[in-house]
């Protein structure tokens, strides 16, 4: 069985609705057996792909997100930001971005943002007269901040596949995440100029004070999680565990979390984790085969024969990943593409950490593009609106997102400045 046959078999099985993990495992298993590897070797290699300290951050960060949602953190952040900018024209637009930003420090996934925060924001916006398409589109677009701003599940997975420092990748994504917020805010600013009627809430210091007290616990979470990692006090895995303990305490303190809720929260987290990890296990089998057949080296030399232009390479990478991100779920897209693309990137002098930011950004934008875009389906389900309506709401927001993607791709300093400054 050649690598080409292997690749085609995997693609066909994925298209025929075989769960991605098994679509990869099946052909890889046949490859191993037809190449004389011992029985049990595939099992060992697949389990070994999950046996990693940095990857332990994945379940723990998912747990932090679930607990934060349970503890009602998003609502508290929402109330706080609303009390601050409520009087501005198009206020709920800025609030929408701000809540995604405020929640992003406890949340590593775009779908958690869209589902958790979106279900609070969208009804509120609809009630105040914002068009549903705008509300849904902005919620989708701002949900990408969740997994780009650390903590980030895709960043943890990239770091483990590419063997770079998770802390450095976390630090590198902060400026791009803020850029997305600014770009979306600019979009909202121009959009709101045509909607004079959307200025509503009265500003009151009393309201700010009371929501500030409620939101204080939430505002301290990023200090622990981000501050702990960037200050070098914790590894990302440790920070995730400490963050989870903090969220537990906060939930009990707010009385929004009961001891009897915990089994369900833990079981849900475990199920979500398992779905990602089985794919990572399968892909480590694929990765072993690619390494054994020296595919990354061959792809790199074939590409470098065509062109040695970093610019061309990055353009191709962006197009490839946007398409990949639109048809396959991000973790799978990441573990399949990174082992092949990264060697070319490093040979062309692209910093692996910068490359990680580009990859994550692309795949997250892919989450809001048909046919697979998970964010579209989640929002369609949350708002009971057809997916097509959701997408037509999202489409205009792709402009600011793609603009940020281009800037981040071609200005490496935006990503590398902070990790260099922090010595990560």
């Amino acid at each position, binding site marked *: 069985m050649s690598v080409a046959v292997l690749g085609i078999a995997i693609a066909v099985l994925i298209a025929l609705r075989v769960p991605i993990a098994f679509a990869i495992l099946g052909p890889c298993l046949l490859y191993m057996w037809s*190449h*004389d*590897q*011992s029985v*049990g*070797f595939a099992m*060992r*290699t697949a389990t*070994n792909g999950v046996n990693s*300290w940095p990857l332990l951050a994945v379940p723990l960060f998912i747990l932090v997100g679930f607990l934060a949602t349970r503890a009602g953190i998003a609502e508290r952040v929402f109330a706080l930001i609303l009390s601050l900018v409520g009087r501005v024209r198009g206020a709920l637009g800025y609030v929408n971005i701000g809540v995604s930003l405020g929640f992003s420090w406890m949340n590593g996934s775009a779908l958690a943002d869209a589902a958790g925060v979106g279900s609070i924001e969208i009804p509120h916006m609809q009630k105040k007269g914002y068009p549903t398409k705008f509300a849904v589109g902005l919620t989708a677009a701002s949900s990408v901040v969740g997994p780009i701003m650390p903590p980030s599940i895709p960043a943890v997975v990239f770091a483990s596949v590419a063997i770079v*420092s998770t*802390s450095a990748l976390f630090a590198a994504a902060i400026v791009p995440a803020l850029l997305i917020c600014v770009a979306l805010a600019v979009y909202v600013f121009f959009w709101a100029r045509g909607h004079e009627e959307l200025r509503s809430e009265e500003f009151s210091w009393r309201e700010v004070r009371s929501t500030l007290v409620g939101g204080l616990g939430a505002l301290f979470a990023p200090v622990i999680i981000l501050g702990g990692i960037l*200050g*070098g*006090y914790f*590894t990302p895995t440790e920070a995730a565990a400490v963050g989870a303990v903090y969220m537990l305490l906060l939930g009990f303190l707010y009385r929004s979390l009961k001891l009897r809720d915990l089994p369900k929260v833990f079981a849900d987290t475990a199920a979500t984790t398992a779905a990602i990890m089985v794919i990572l296990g399968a892909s480590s089998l694929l990765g*072993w085969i690619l*390494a*054994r057949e020296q595919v990354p080296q061959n792809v790199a030399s074939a590409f470098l024969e065509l062109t040695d232009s970093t610019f061309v390479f990055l353009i191709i990478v962006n197009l490839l990943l946007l398409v990949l991100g639109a048809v396959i779920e991000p973790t799978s897209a990441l573990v399949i593409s990174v082992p092949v693309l990264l060697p070319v990137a490093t040979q062309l002098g692209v910093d692996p950490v910068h490359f990680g930011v580009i990859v994550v950004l692309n795949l997250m934008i892919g989450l809001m593009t048909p046919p697979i875009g998970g964010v579209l389906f989640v929002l369609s389900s949350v708002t009971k609106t057809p997916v097509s309506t959701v997408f037509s709401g999202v489409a205009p927001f792709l402009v600011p997102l793609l603009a940020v993607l281009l800037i981040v791709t071609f200005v490496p300093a935006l990503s590398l400045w902070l990790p260099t400054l922090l*010595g*990560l």
Partner: protein
Amino acid sequence: GDDDSGGSGGDESVTLSFANSYPDEHPHNQCGAMVVQETLADGDSGVEIEVFSNSQLGPDAERFTSVASGDIDIDIQGSSAISASFEEIGAMDAAYAFADADELFTFVDTDEFDAMAERLLEETGVRVLDVWYFGMRQFTANQPIRTPDDFDGLRMRFPDSPQYLMNAEALGAEATPVAFEEVFLALQQGTIDGQENPVPTIQDMNFTEVQSHVSLTGHQVGSVMAIISEESWQSLSSDQQEAVQAAISDAREGDRQCVEEAENDILAEWEESGTMTVVDDVDLDTFSEQAETFFNENYEGAQLELYQAIRESVGS
């Protein structure tokens, strides 16, 4: 191996995979694996070597399992890693078991070593081809380490393996296990105060940026085993076996020279530039006597026997 010659002892040409965890530039690749590859390519044994450096085929423990099962042909493994499955070999990594590389190789060339290798083969299906020198492990900290008392109040990082933690205890240090990739950050943030590694590793990992002193304790003569899967070994013809054995053993001396050259060059560079204060008046006698007492008291059974055989071979 995924080669086409299954023929036990046949004369067809074979390709053997040679995996390790070191970067391409490391002496074990430059002066080790790649030299073996060239030697065999130039010979007429029909054995071809494919090198997979940098843990491409998996981390240490997993690759050891793969050699045992025949999925990787040749690999380089430290004794501490192997000792999880074959405990006694850990004694090769005991603190001050050897004073220098000469003593190491004196023992490796004894019958006691061969007998130990034979037991390893019986228990795990992994054959030791030879031992290569990995360098002397030295302590770094922001102060000199001259006597065991100097460890007072210091948190020293040791690798996460029972033998290394025994070494810490034997030397009188408080061990903190930290994953290798996280050592730099931990030193920078002061969650640990020092660590121990061979000089080239200290340089490669930039520990010099966050540590001021390197103390030449030489507390462990680092060594690695070049191992081959017994299944792969038996699939070779006797000519091929001879060629592989010779290529690995012939590389031993050149590999050692490369390591020692790197050690000396880096130390000279540090002294000249003042990057690190090199502390060379370590109280080696106190350290090694303390370690010997400790291991004689704490090792048991086969491990104690191997340790004593080592100490005997070096004339102590």
